């Protein structure tokens, strides 16, 4: 079935080029329908590929340049369950977003469809490829389409700031990746992931490999919005149209996390051999990211910016899952990517409709206005609950697996921290739901940062496609924790993902696939510990929302004392998110210098 592999990339790209050529002549609805069909086809093919990978990795050598004597001359696509699943998620989110924008982006030019399809093809290529430089090419294509989409509503000044910050920081990150690729090529003479892994194995990591690891990881962590490289995400999300935000938060950020996992396990795992220094740094970066994201999420009143910081929180948790360097935690991260992507996508779609119907995107300005659209309030509530980690709902499965992995690796102190971060960010979303859709809480809150307003789209857009897309996204996302057999397949997929020697044998030496076990279609009961964490998260989220809404009813003394203590650090963190790209670049260099220095000293 390897002939399927190029299709999730070729079909969207070909359709994009086709639409661009005929956009002046063909009627708008025909082009929209074509774009939707192309994205749906790509999703279908990705799902078929994912099912096919249950029997072993699927391989496709472009140009028929198969490896000779264990040396890869051409470029390959090597699909495994996790990669194919990510490609399916990306294409599926594009399909939902295009369905949503059928009516939401009415007056937009057809260039929107072109850019979305290019974005779709690039993400699919990135998730499926087995060649490091090919990964970089799709990464850049993803980036270029994303920069243009972020600045789409260019009539206002805000999108320019968002797009500029996004473009400049991610481009700088991409250059770091390129230097890392150059270093690796110089050492091994290879660009194929499997071959890189084979050439680096057996030699201890020396200075070049350590610096290459640093640069490549940091470049991808910029895309994954990990502290201290995360500043661009909120700016970009605040200004991009809602269907574009669905893709940014749902798939693009996750691509960075996937890259770190893929490159570590295939290329570097033999040289570093589960090094505790690599693990500790990645895990603690993830924890800090989750906590900073949660704090900033609580301080927002701009709905999309708040959701962006919630994405940063979850990206931190995903990095912990990957950074634990453990298959169980990796399976958890994969599940988290899946459920978070769908639920967060649904929440952004609700935001889009709120902007359309209620003509504002600011929580305080929307006070009580959501009572006019109760079904969307239900969707918002469902999505938020999906993000808390309540047992058997939404992101629960991902968290449970990551927690298990943390216990196995002996870093159990991360579990409560991650729970707190997730609960606080979900609590902020609950607060919004209550204030907007129920009218609870005061109409003003000086703690929250005001932001410029956004121009709402045309008022008379049809709501049905939007409602269908949103409901689908949230419903599927919520149901993922109770999907029969998903946990087993994710764990087994992760076990295969981390098996470097099997990957090398299969890709370079065409070793036949080993017999894959038949996995059950059951839902495993959660452990008591996971139940405890899930319920604690729910309680904390509700408490956070209540705190946000009715803080002013606390005793005066308590409030003034805590303000005196907590206000300075809060303001420092808030001021650091300055919106100025020079600051962001400075943080990039500081982060690279520190991480590089730490790894240079500890890994030598």
């Amino acid at each position, binding site marked *: 079935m390897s*002939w399927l592999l*190029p*299709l999730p990339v*070729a079909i969207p*790209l*070909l359709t*994009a*080029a*086709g639409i*661009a*050529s005929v956009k002046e002549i063909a009627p708008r609805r025909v082009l929209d329908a074509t774009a939707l069909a192309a994205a749906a086809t790509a999703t279908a093919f990705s799902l078929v590929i994912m099912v096919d990978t249950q029997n072993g990795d699927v391989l*496709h*050598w*472009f*140009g*028929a340049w198969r490896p*000779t004597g264990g*040396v890869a*001359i*051409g*470029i390959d696509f090597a699909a495994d369950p996790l990669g194919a699943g990510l490609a399916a998620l990306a294409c599926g989110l594009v399909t939902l977003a295009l369905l949503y924008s059928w009516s939401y982006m009415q007056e937009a*030019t057809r*260039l929107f469809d*072109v*850019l979305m399809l*290019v974005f779709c*093809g*690039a993400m699919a290529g990135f998730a499926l490829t087995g060649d490091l*430089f*090919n990964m970089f*090419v*799709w990464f*850049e*294509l993803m980036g*270029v*389409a994303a*920069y*243009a989409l972020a*600045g*789409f509503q*260019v*009539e206002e000044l805000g999108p320019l700031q968002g797009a500029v910050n996004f473009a400049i920081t991610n481009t700088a990150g991409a250059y770091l990746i390129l230097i890392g690729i150059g*270093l690796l090529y*110089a*050492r091994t*003479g*290879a660009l194929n992931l499997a071959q890189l892994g084979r050439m680096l194995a057996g030699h201890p990591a*020396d*200075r*070049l*490999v350590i*610096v290459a690891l640093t*640069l490549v990881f940091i470049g991808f962590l910029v895309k994954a919005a990990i502290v201290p490289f995360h500043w661009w995400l909120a700016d970009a999300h605040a200004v991009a149209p809602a269907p574009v935000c669905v893709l940014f938060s749902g798939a693009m950020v996750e691509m960075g996390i996937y890259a770190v996992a893929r490159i570590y396990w295939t290329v570097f795992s033999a040289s570093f051999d589960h090094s505790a220094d690599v693990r500790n740094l990645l895990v603690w970066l993830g924890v800090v990211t989750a906590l900073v994201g949660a704090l900033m999420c609580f301080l927002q009143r701009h709905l999309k910016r708040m959701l962006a910081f919630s994405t940063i929180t979850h990206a931190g948790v995903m990095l912990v899952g990957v950074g634990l360097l453990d298959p169980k935690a990796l399976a958890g991260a994969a599940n988290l990517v899946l459920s978070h992507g769908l639920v967060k996508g649904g929440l952004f779609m609700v935001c889009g409709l709120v902007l359309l119907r209620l003509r504002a995107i600011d929580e305080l300005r929307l006070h009580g206005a959501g009572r006019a659209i109760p079904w969307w309030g239900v969707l918002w509530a469902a999505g938020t609950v999906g993000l808390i980690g309540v047992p058997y709902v939404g992101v629960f499965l991902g968290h449970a697996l990551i927690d298990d992995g943390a216990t196995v690796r002996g870093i159990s102190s991360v579990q409560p921290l991650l729970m707190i971060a997730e609960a606080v960010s979900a609590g902020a979303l609950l607060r919004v739901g209550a204030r907007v859709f129920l009218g609870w809480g005061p109409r003003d809150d000086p703690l929250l940062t005001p932001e410029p307003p956004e121009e709402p789209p045309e008022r008379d857009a049809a709501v049905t496609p939007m409602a269908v897309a949103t409901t689908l996204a949230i419903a599927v996302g919520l149901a993922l924790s109770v999907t029969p057999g998903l946990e087993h397949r994710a764990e087994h997929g992760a076990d295969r993902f981390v098996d470097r020697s099997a990957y090398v044998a299969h890709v370079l030496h065409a070793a036949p696939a080993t017999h894959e076990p038949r996995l059950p279609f059951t839902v495993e009961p959660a452990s008591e510990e996971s139940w405890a964490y899930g319920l604690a998260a729910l309680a904390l989220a509700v408490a956070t929302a209540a705190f946000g809404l009715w803080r002013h009813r606390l005793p005066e003394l308590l409030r003034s004392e805590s303000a005196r203590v907590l206000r300075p650090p809060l303001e420092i963190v808030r001021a650091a998110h300055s919106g100025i790209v*020079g600051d962001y670049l*400075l943080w990039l*260099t*500081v982060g690279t*210098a520190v991480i*590089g220095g730490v790894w*240079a000293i500890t890994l030598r």
Partner: protein
Amino acid sequence: MTRRGIRAAVAVPTLGVLGVVLFWGLSGLPPFGNYHGIYGFLINHRALPQRHTTNAVTATVFDYRGFDTMGEEFILFAAVTGVVLLLRKGSEESDEAESEDQEPPEDDVRSDALRLFGMLALAAGALVALWLIAYGLVTPGGGFQGGVALASAFGLLYLTVGYRPWTRRTKEAALDPLEGVGASGYVVIGLAALISGLPFLTNLLGPGKPGTLWSGGSLSFINWAVAMEVAAANLILYKEFLEEYIVPLARRGG
């Protein structure tokens, strides 16, 4: 201290540390001139026998690593789409700017010598560009290089003749489909192989005769598709940016 001053003060020691780490890593590279990587070695030895292409770099770009080039071509395509989007939508007077009946400024070059030189230089440049594209498989050159050269040669039209002749000869209606065909052509060539049961982008035509225009089989077609796309894309870029400059000038009566 201003914000920028603080940034500069922090940046210098940070870049110092980063520099130390970077140079430390770079010192692990194989000595300059002593590179023995297997990949390049294999391609240098096989490009001619296998693909009948004397230019190993073009063989790498369009064949061995042809899939990368497809992605790269689409990067150009997407970026040009993005630029068109940003500049057309961002312009408040976008309706007037798009209309070609808008009175462009009276900036036609008056000197006959300059116009003559311009036309000759354009012809020479276009010929060199076409040669770079056509013989890119044999000697240094290729679709990308030739495409950019072709677009730049046409740019001479604006510089040496004037804005109105330039707009007359670079109409969007012609450039957009050219770009689209170039981009989709690459994918179609790849899909053609897939449909015949071979992996994507496999060469369906024979290897061709080395040292001639059609060496390399489907390589030459990919080469021309890329050249078309690159030339059209670059011309669109020049057009868009020039319009940003010219139209306000016209409005100011410059």
